[in-house]
């Protein structure tokens, strides 16, 4: 089992950041690496169990299922159904916590997964840096004040 964890402080109130990231279909709007996205079977993007089907800018296609969405904790849990990375049992959580000092947001993005033998390090780096870190940096930039 591999684990990835990235976190950052975003200079905006948590409720504002949450409004952006809670939409399970909004990856193209706030991440730099997603070209387009749709929710399969025309379901609402906050329906638990819905599947987002999105295409990366580098051409890869990924399907992910929404497992949990908490407007109370400001967190979103999802799993990968299909991806070009070849990971198994991939579950990720994106969560926001208010930083009361300065009315900012502490954003965490973490995942656990099984990687094919010999690919652990490369995938951990790819997901940690190429996905989570890139996404958090984009959020930071979006809310810079």
């Amino acid at each position, binding site marked *: 089992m591999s684990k990835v*964890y990235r976190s950052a*402080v975003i200079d905006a109130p948590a409720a504002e950041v949450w409004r952006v990231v809670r939409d399970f279909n909004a990856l193209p709007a706030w991440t730099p690496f997603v070209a387009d996205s749709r929710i399969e079977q025309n379901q609402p993007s906050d329906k638990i169990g819905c599947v987002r089907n999105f295409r990366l800018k580098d051409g890869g296609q990924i399907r992910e299922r929404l497992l949990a969405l908490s407007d109370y904790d400001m967190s979103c849990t999802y799993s990968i159904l299909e991806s070009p990375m070849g990971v198994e049992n991939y579950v990720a959580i994106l969560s926001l*916590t208010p*930083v*009361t000092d300065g009315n*900012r947001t502490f954003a*965490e993005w973490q995942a656990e997964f099984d990687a094919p033998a010999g690919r652990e390090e490369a995938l951990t780096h790819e997901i940690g840096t190429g996905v989570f*870190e890139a996404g958090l940096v984009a959020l930071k930039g979006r809310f810079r004040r």
Partner: protein
Amino acid sequence: MVSIVESAVIDAPVDEVWRVLRDFNGHLAWHPAIATSRIEDGLPGDAVGAVRCFTLKQGGMLREQLLVLDDRRHELTYCLLEGPLPLFDYVATVRLRPVTDGNATFWQWRSTFRPPLERKDEMVGLVRDGIYRAGFRGLADHLGVRARPALSQGPMMQPSPVSKPATALSSPSVRPLLATSTREAEAIVVERHGGPEVLVAKTIAVPDPGPGEVLLRHTAIGVNFIDVYCRTGYFDLLKPPGIPGMEAAGRIEAVGSGVTALRPGERVGYACPPVGAYATMRVMQPDLVVRLPDTIDDETAAAGLLKGMAASFLLHDVHRVEPGEVVVVHAAAGGVGSLLTQWASALGARVVATVSTDAKAAIPREGGAEVVVVRRREDFVAVVRDLTGGRGASVVFDAIGRDSFHQSIDALAQRGHLVSYGQASGPVGSWDIGAFASKSLRISRPNYGHYTGTPDDLAVQSSRFFSALEKGLVRMATPTRFRLSQAAEAHASLEAGVTTGSLILVP
């Protein structure tokens, strides 16, 4: 139940922040509100179950217990066991998370507790600003890093004052007071239980002394905290309408039939129930009064008899203080406390005196105390340990009660003696006496009436006190004088804690 969640980002790696925070006794080094801190029972600062006993710079002692310590999650949870503020069921959690972007630390500090409704905002503000926000800034300073943005300075802990100790008295029946007769006296009458305003000046009729009774004309009347308790109804010694007061000096005005021990004109004093001293004259049992020696003036007797006799039996009968003994006296600026300090010092004891505030420290210092400890910012247990090479004190005189009882036991040496003679801060609660076996402790809970209740006891205690005054072993500060008609003012002053030394009423 209120819930507080505060969080900040500290510009330091999570391991570095956690290394500081995980030491349950480490807050002394980084939290700006902490004056002293130690872990009880010699436990390490990362032992789950450890209790930290600490004092605040602004006064107040608290005890908190570590409930959870988790090095993997960087979390610790603790609860408040005792403290000067009404933070009931206070449980707090400190949680750290790494901020991988910039190698910083997200720190969340949260708690739940039940404050009294009317003090909710005050308590929430105090915990949020005085503890958590101040702590964020303090730790960042300690590590030499930033906690952005600059946090506003909040109010620190403001503990409520500890009221003055009251010596316990037995409670005999109250005699009928407003009887019809020939003499008239000026008196202060409690018309109903309540504040100082219920003390009303009245002219009353005083009966002739009956068989076996004497009639006294007062020259000075002592004002004690127990009078306040009688006025408010907290003690059941006065049923309104009635005349309060249990300590006075004066002259025998007349004696009833069968009284041979006392004659009219003799100077006497008393300090005991029944109530009725706040009057120019009263009827009294002759075996409750003592003759005053020429060396003791009326005002000193009225101001000091009760406290002096209490100090006398506490230091000679309840515990026989020996030269060289280390003696702790709490509330050492108070009435009995200041006499205990002087007298024990004069007997050769090494007195560790505790007071609530710096302003009161001069009184026990002048009284001969070897060390004076300001309880709100210093830990007297540590002071006692230092002074005794870790052995502890041989006796603690404690009239504070609930707020000090545990520490008093902590401060005792093996075979030490805790003399609990009052409970100004509240009852000490139930204790398993089996625990006292760990140091072979002795506990005394003396009652004033049982040491001064018979004419023989009265003679022993009063003459010992008078002799101590004559020899200069103890000195009474000049009492603050009020006219008898100003009794309400005297009570208000006493309750406000603005007076030091004794208060007397002068007819």
